């Protein structure tokens, strides 16, 4: 269902960050806003990856994947305790 939203992990290339943004976080927020007015970044990642987590529809995720600076958009997975 293209309308059902789920969380995606978005991997970014920081070297593509426009100089107009003060920080990667602002850049990520603007990218999300360009896809969806109703969604906001869940997490910004700075250490283990460059990127963020956001809830999007499949169509929005596919559109985001084509944006310059986006390396990959992976759907969230659920892990379990052992």
């Amino acid at each position, binding site marked *: 269902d293209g309308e059902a939203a789920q969380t995606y992990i978005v991997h970014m290339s920081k070297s593509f960050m426009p100089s107009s943004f003060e920080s990667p976080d602002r850049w990520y927020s603007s990218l999300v806003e360009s896809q969806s007015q109703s969604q906001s970044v869940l997490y910004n990642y700075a*250490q*283990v990856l460059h990127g963020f987590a956001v809830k999007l529809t499949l169509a929005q995720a596919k559109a985001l994947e084509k944006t310059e600076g986006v390396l990959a958009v992976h759907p969230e997975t659920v892990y*379990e305790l052992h």
Partner: protein
Amino acid sequence: TTHTPEFLGLDGSNGLWSESDGADDVVVGVLDTGVWPESRSFGDEGMKPVPSHWKGECESGTRFNASHCNKKLIGARFFCSGYEAAYGRVNESKEFRSPRDQDGHGTHTASTAAGSFVADASLQGYARGTARGMAPFARVAVYKVCWQGGCFSSDILAGMDHAVADGVNVLSMSLGGGVVPYYRDGIAVGAFTAMRKGIFVSCSAGNAGPDPMSLANVAPWITTVGAGTLDRDFPASIVLGNRVRYGGVSLYSGSGLPRGKLLPLIYAADASNGNKSSNLCLANTLDERLVKGKIVLCDRGISARVDKGNVVKSAGGAGMILANMAANGEELVADSHLLPAAAVGRRVGDAIRRYVKASRKARATIEFEGTVLGVKPSPVVAAFSSRGPSSMTPQILKPDVIGPGVNILAAWTGVAGPSEMKADTRRVDFNIISGTSMSCPHVSGVAALLKGAQPGWSPAAIRSALMTTAYTVDNTGAPLRDVATGNDSTPFDHGAGHVDPQRALTPGLVYDMGVQDYVGFLCALSYTPQQIRLLVKSNLTCTKKARLRSPGNLNYPSFSVVFSSHHDHFNRSATVVKYTRTVTNVGQGASKYRVAVSAPPTVKITVKPTTLSFQSVNQKRSYTVTFIAKRAAPRLTAAASFGSITWTDGLHKVRSPVAIMW
């Protein structure tokens, strides 16, 4: 835990213990269900000030604030944005929206890794002793990333992101998921950066055993930990009406069954309310009229073991015998049931099933016998422990090691009973549970001690030390066994063997690795530059120099060889496989090592050179191993053979397991 320090040889004041100086500068980060901070396992009496490198925090939330942290529990954060995006806001009347542990699992794992000393710990009298983590002076930082609905990768990545920034030295993660390419696996992605920053990452291998290829967390920069038993047991005797007595295990601590009186015994399959699965004692499958006042024999499988006990209790049963099926073999996992109950192995289960079938008036009772030590053989590989080979990269042998993971006592949450069921209103300070979740933090704690003793060692060097010094014989001197089959276990079951912390302190040689080695490995997997970048986080190309000839050429402390009837993409005959390894001397300066090879009859293994001479510490030497298949692929498609390559200088034994597949 009350017995694993002794079982692991960590009970003395010498060796790793003194060399590590208590590892009080080492921070163990635990990604799990949070922490119960009031547990005495997180007391900070006598602890030195918090290490100066620490940047972590204690976050506030439901029933948790900064005052819950101390010099032992130095960090506590929670991450629920991914969980809440899927399920809506955490209901604070049902779940703590804070680092506080609802479940118990996180408190158990954190205290196993680095809990403080607690005298007179037990679970209602069972496993009584002084509880402590493997690194009792190391610091604990908890990152709550698992909630009642699961552990979401966005939350896990956030937890790892903060753990790295906070300055943890060891990451302990007793959770996992399905096998996906490394660049799509959140734990593997996060662990790569952690490794790059010198953080040792240990993860549980999974509880999907004994099926082959059932492992989780198989990335080679992660230390993958399987589970074995201790030499401790909680015996219970099942006495049948024919006066035959069988052995089982139990952690039941209530009023027990009437003394000296045998009760009617019924097989759950014969007590069905019409449901075909009644033999498994699943919910709503038993006929209360047939069960009431009787001991019910239930088959293991599908539902949680303690749930079966509750089903029998709810149906009016007086007791339960829980019998293993083929998948569990003779593995005996004890549970804190709500009714008098005992678990038995498959053979005993079959005997009791036969007795019930043959007897018109089957009767039984259960006698609970407390805690015994010195059980032989031990350790034994747990049936539930996930098994290799790695389905993602069969050229890397996984799991890496096994550690204690069966019937482990450690600290527990204050809001859940020992059976973890809602119906269980009992509250305990310590609980006894099993899983690779329990073996993982043992290795994390040992790694913290090694980190304290050898601060300059890389995560790969620490893992190498743990692997090459692991032992493969039990306390009877026989090869380690697999409780699922009763046969000798293989490196697909136990990896390099059972961890031996004291020996790991002086491995002699280590197989060291850094980011470039792993990049070469990823190139050998034919990952695209973009896929590699998701892991490495920088621009890289797979140059001829960087690329390993095959993934199995990674400088790993074990060997996994895959023969195929085809030629590989370099047009080499795949019945000959050649791997190169480089070892670093971490022993005394001048030394000479000789190789000893144990090869299966189907494979010729040649090592060149056969001696390695070192003049100084940190000197590196390389050697090449050639594996030649003596015959075509065996008829059985899953055929595998095993051996080992050991370097010895008279003082050290640096052993690498070998697994060969066709």
